[in-house]
C-alpha cells in the first residue's frame, strides 16, 4: 500500500515539476550568458515573492521525488532491506528540503 502511494506521489511530483524544470533550464541558459555573478542572481531573486514560491515549491517537489527514487534504487540495487532504505530516503528528504529551503531563503530574502 505504501509503495503504491509512493509510486503515485513520485508521478505527481514529476508532473508538478515539468513547468518548473523547463523554466529553470531556460533561466540557466539565459543567466550563464556572460558569466555568473552573485549580483546578477540576487538582483533577479531577492525580494521576489514569485521566485520564492517558484523555488520553494521546486525544492519540496524535488526533495520528495528524489527521496522516493533513491529508496527504490537503494532497495533494488544495493540494500535489500526496505526499512533501512526507507530511513535513508527520509534522511535524504530532510537534507534536501532543509538545505534547499535555506538556499531559497538565502537568495530571495531581502
Amino acid at each position, binding site marked *: 500500500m505504501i509503495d503504491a502511494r509512493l509510486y503515485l506521489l513520485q*508521478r505527481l511530483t*514529476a*508532473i508538478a515539476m*515539468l513547468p518548473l*524544470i*523547463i523554466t529553470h*533550464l531556460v533561466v*540557466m*541558459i*539565459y543567466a*550563464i*550568458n556572460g*558569466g*555568473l*555573478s*552573485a*549580483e546578477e*542572481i*540576487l538582483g533577479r531573486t531577492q525580494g521576489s515573492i514569485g521566485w520564492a514560491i517558484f523555488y520553494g515549491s521546486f*525544492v519540496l517537489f*524535488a526533495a520528495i521525488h*528524489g527521496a522516493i*527514487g*533513491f529508496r527504490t*534504487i537503494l532497495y533494488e540495487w544495493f540494500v535489500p532491506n526496505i526499512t533501512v532504505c526507507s530511513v535513508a530516503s527520509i534522511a*535524504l528528504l530532510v*537534507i*534536501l528540503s532543509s*538545505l*534547499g529551503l*535555506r*538556499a531559497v*531563503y*538565502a*537568495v530571495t530574502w531581502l
Partner: protein
Amino acid sequence: MMKHRSHPLWKAFLLHRISGLALALFLPIHFVILGLALEGASALNTALAFSELPFVKAAEVGLILLLAIHLLGGIRILILELTQLSWDQKMLSRSAFGLSAIIATIFLWSAS
C-alpha cells in the same frame, strides 16, 4: 541472459536511474553554494568564480545534460504510463536523448 541489456529501452531505464541519482547527489552541493548568499554577495561570488574553471564548466554542461535526460526521459515514462498513446517508445527514448544533447549544447554555447 543479459541480452535485454542491449535493448534501447533498458538503456533508457538505466540512464533515467543514473541521471536521477546523480542529480539527487548534486543538489546538496548546489544548495550549499546558493546558501552562501546568507554571508553576502562576495561569499557567493567566491564560489561562483570556480564555475569559470574549464573542468567545472564541463561538469555544469554534464549536469544540464543529465537534467534534460531525466526531464525528457521522465516525460516518456509519463506518456507510457498515464496515457493511451501508443507511440514508438524506442523512437521517443532516442528523441529524448537527442533533444537533451541539443539542450546541453545550447547551454555550452551560451556559457562560452
